[in-house]
């Protein structure tokens, strides 16, 4: 207890100023005066009295020194001196210092930013969710499968499941995500919605910001709505009396009952604006939704009872699920399922998404950049140390212990690391947000800006880096004794070996990064150039949801009017009205060949379209012709265009043009529809993972002749610009084309493909970014090391020049050492990369991870760049003035 007290007062003493020491001076003066007075009383003269007093008190300076030492923590003064020395050394070598700090900052921040991304994706629980470990998302898979996906089921099955598994599961909450238009006309917006089952908020255990959240025991009528904190702020100005106000969603008006807590925006990728009772949305879509087992679109969350083992709950729930669900396969059999009570968050799903796989690989790879930066900084420290070797030798000669010298270099590394840590944190706070924006889906659930773990991690990494960096050069340099030619030369030689090792290491670590960049470049290029028989990268899909707005009968005419307006816009090449499109979805319908079995198996996708569809899509004919405007009339002869997959299925190996198909238009209504053309490939849902032979069969029909097949309408617009550039204006023009339109949705036709390109783009951009950093670091390293070699051997080179050496040979000699180190590094790096690329196997497209050409290209590029980096500073050797060189001491 006393020891602790002493330590604390000493710590305070160390940190607080010198007041107490000033007071001591005063105390000592008083003491001297009193002593002198005493002596004066005994009859001594003034001077004699003062002298005697001084003698009795003893050395004032020693007393003050002893007092100081007692007052403060031991070792602090020595540390302060170390700091001063280190700071002075760092300032003197300003170039090296700035370079080292920049390198470390780059290395540490790249690691920390990616660690932050991975943390949000994989580790952080969703914010605001109560006891998140008990909240699970339901996934299912066939009993023998190994790729569970999110469960999609119907209400009655989920209700039976909840009843059957009630011993382990407190509640199951069915829900689905939906985008709902709000309002009409120019001010119409679209909101991201969750339609929630009664127990939804019970399962999540949220505390509302305002109002009362609905629950199984706090039921609400179907006109209730819960809004997000963000929507409350934006749409309602954050007023406290928002409860009871109304919000129009589609054709209904909802009353706000609660505001979600700040920062909670659902448990899915897109931030949710509103939560609407399930009944409100389902009643519109499927009136018998509570009892029907026909089809379902409901996902589910569950809350485990406290203390229940997840595996046990899963086993029982699986049993119950298999007993209650009545879904049948096409052949009438009932498959056996496995239920998984998986993680809530997207990044933690039972089957890792490609994006997560890439991010994990990249997170690991980013540490390579950190290692490279450390290697380079280590080199810089050694070089700056070598330049100071005579100073160190002098210090050693004057009695500085080896430990003291070691500490000085370590402190130097530590200062660098601390500054770099501050820089890295600043990067994470600023650039980190940007990087997250690129790398992550919006991740509504874990959007908090920064947490303590990140700060700890950054400082931890920096401290470790400082230790690693400081220790090797410190040991090397502190071995300095008195400068004698022999040991000094040996020391230089061993330092050079260390420097070469660092150079090799940097080059080696760059190889995997460059190989990764190459692999993703090739993958993305191949993915973007897959031949779908159509070119849709300049097509935008536009759709206004009249059904949800309560006036489905206006959908056709309004889309025609939008089409007429859009066609007049500059930059718009063609517009086609269709029944099925990315914004709307598609449907499969019974279609049979004229002769042949009439079964439902793999029903073709059917789309009714304008003839301009073929222009918009840049469709390619494999046989026959497209249908014409004349055939696009309600009374025209029935004609169809099919794709190769359908032709192949119905009439394998035979011509399709001129054949008859039957399109189901209602009971007892089978009439011949003549196939007039076959389009190449043309899948309905394009996917780079599908081989052309696996494309779905597609039937394309004239929309005015087959308008009754579906009430849904959308427009496909071909523009000269990319959808990204054209989309905002297209949407605005479409919204204004007809008065009081519901919200007009516009999205790139290829949006769905985005999820396939995205991992590749992601991989490419990260690997490219890291490679660029790595190259900068490696080039700097190679150049610095060669330049140092030139400076160190200037005298030797001068002598060689005097003796008649060819300057060109000397330049090569100087560059050679660096280049040899680099070549060894390249070989090691190739092995490293070969060992590591396997991780990417599952995300690459159309290229083998161990592609020899890519490896060769990466190594050649590095060798070329590295040679230039070594050669440029080496050229200085050729320009050495022999007479000047010989004057160097």
């Amino acid at each position: 207890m006393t020891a602790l007290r002493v330590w604390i007062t000493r710590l305070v003493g160390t940190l607080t100023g010198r007041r107490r020491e000033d007071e001591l001076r005063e105390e000592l003066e008083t003491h001297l005066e009193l002593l002198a007075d005493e002596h004066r009383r005994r009859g001594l003269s003034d001077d004699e009295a003062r002298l005697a007093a001084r003698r009795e008190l003893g050395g004032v300076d020693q007393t003050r020194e002893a007092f100081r030492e007692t007052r403060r923590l031991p070792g602090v003064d020595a540390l302060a001196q170390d700091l001063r020395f280190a700071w002075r050394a760092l300032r003197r070598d300003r170039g090296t210092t700035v370079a080292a700090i920049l390198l470390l900052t780059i290395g540490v921040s790249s690691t920390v930013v990616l660690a932050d991304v991975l943390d949000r994706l994989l580790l952080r629980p969703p914010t605001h969710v109560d006891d998140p470990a008990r909240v699970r998302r339901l996934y299912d898979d066939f009993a023998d499968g190994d790729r569970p996906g999110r469960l999609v089921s119907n209400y009655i099955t989920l209700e039976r499941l909840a009843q059957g598994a009630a011993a382990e599961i407190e509640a199951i909450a069915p829900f689905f995500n939906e985008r709902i238009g709000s309002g009409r006309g120019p001010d119409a917006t679209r909101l991201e919605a969750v339609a929630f089952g009664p127990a939804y908020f019970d399962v999540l255990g949220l505390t509302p910001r305002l109002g009362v959240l609905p629950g199984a025991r706090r039921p609400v009528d179907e006109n209730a709505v819960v809004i997000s904190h963000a929507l409350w702020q934006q749409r309602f100005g954050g007023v406290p009396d928002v409860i009871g106000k109304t919000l129009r969603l589609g054709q209904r008006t909802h009353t706000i009952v609660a505001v979600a807590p700040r920062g909670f925006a659902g448990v899915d990728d897109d931030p949710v604006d509103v939560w609407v009772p399930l009944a409100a949305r389902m009643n519109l879509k499927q009136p018998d939704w509570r009892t029907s087992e026909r089809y379902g679109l409901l996902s589910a969350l569950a809350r485990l009872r406290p203390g229940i083992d997840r595996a046990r709950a899963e086993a029982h729930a699986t049993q119950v699920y298999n007993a209650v669900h009545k879904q049948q396969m096409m052949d009438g059999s009932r498959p056996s399922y496995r239920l998984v009570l998986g993680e809530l968050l997207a990044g933690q799903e039972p089957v890792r998404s490609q994006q997560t796989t890439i991010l994990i690989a990249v997170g690991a790879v980013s540490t390579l950049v950190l290692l490279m930066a450390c290697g380079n900084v280590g080199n810089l420290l050694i070089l700056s140390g070598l330049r100071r070797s005579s100073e160190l030798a002098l210090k050693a000669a004057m009695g500085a212990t080896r430990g003291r010298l070691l500490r000085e270099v370590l402190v130097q590394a530590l200062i660098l690391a601390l500054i770099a840590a501050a820089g890295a944190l600043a990067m994470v706070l600023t650039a980190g947000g940007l990087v997250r924006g690129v790398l992550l889906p919006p991740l509504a659930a874990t959007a908090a800006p920064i947490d303590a773990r990140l700060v700890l991690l950054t400082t931890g990494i920096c401290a470790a880096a400082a230790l690693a960096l400081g220790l090797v050069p410190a040991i090397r340099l502190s071995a300095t004794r008195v400068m004698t030619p022999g040991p000094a030369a040996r020391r230089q030689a061993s330092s050079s070996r260390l420097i070469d090792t660092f150079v090799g290491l940097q080059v080696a670590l760059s190889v995997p990064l460059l190989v990764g960049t190459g692999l993703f470049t090739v993958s993305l290029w191949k993915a973007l150039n897959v031949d779908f028989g159509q070119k849709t990268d300049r097509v935008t899909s536009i759709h206004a949801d009249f059904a949800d707005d309560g006036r489905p009968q206006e959908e056709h005419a309004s889309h025609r009017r939008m089409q007429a307006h859009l066609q007049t816009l500059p930059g718009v090449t063609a517009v086609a009205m269709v029944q099925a499109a990315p914004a709307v979805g598609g449907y499969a319908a019974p279609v049979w060949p004229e002769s042949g079995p009439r079964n439902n198996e793999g029903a073709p996708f059917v789309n009714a379209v304008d003839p301009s569809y073929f222009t918009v899509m840049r469709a390619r004919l494999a046989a026959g012709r497209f249908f014409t405007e004349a055939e696009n009339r309600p009374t025209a002869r029935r004609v169809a265009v099919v794709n190769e997959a359908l032709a192949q299925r119905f009439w394998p190996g035979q011509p399709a043009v001129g054949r008859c198909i039957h399109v189901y238009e209602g009971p007892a209504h089978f009439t011949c529809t003549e196939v007039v053309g076959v389009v190449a490939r043309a899948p309905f849902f394009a996917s780079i993972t599908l081989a052309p032979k696996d494309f779905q069969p597609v039937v394309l029909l004239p929309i005015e002749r087959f308008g009754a097949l579906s009430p849904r309408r959308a427009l496909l617009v071909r523009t000269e610009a990319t959808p990204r550039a054209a989309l905002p204006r297209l949407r605005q023009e479409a919204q204004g084309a007809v008065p009081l339109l519901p919200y007009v949705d516009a999205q790139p036709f290829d949006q769905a493909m985005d999820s396939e390109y995205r991992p590749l783009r992601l991989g490419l951009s990260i690997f490219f970014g890291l490679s660029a950093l790595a190259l900068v670091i490696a080039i700097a390293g190679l150049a610095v090391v060669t330049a140092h070699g030139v400076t160190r051997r200037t005298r030797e080179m001068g002598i060689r020049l005097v003796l008649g050496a060819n300057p060109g040979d000397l330049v090569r000699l100087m560059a050679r050492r660096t280049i040899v180190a680099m070549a060894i590094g390249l070989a090691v790096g190739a092995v490293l990369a070969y060992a590591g690329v396997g991780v990417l196997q599952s995300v690459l497209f159309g290229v083998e991870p161990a592609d020899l050409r890519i490896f060769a290209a990466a190594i050649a590029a590095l060798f070329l760049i590295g040679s230039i980096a070594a050669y440029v500073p080496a050229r200085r050797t050729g320009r050495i003035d022999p007479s000047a060189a010989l004057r160097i001491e």
Partner: protein
Amino acid sequence: MSPPAAEVPYGTLDLMVLKTLAAMGAQHGYGIARRIEQVSNGALALNQGTIYPALLRLEQKGWISSEFGTSENNRRARFYSITKAGRKQLDTEAELWARTVDMMARMLEPEP
């Protein structure tokens, strides 16, 4: 001839200071030094400056406390006084010291 004045044995200065403060009440550094010299009756050569680190040490341990006051010659001086914890410590140390002295005395008794 009186025996030469001895150095202060290591570790005893703290005890002397505590005892002085316990006996005399609040004192400044000079007063404490004078008192120790008087009590030792010239047997102790005290370098008076050394009591200041000792006073700080005792204060850090919480055995004495200090405050500013005015000395006899009208100067500002720091006055030290013993705390409750200090008195307890003094008792413990004094007993330990007595036992040590007793033991040493018996050790050094001339052989019969």
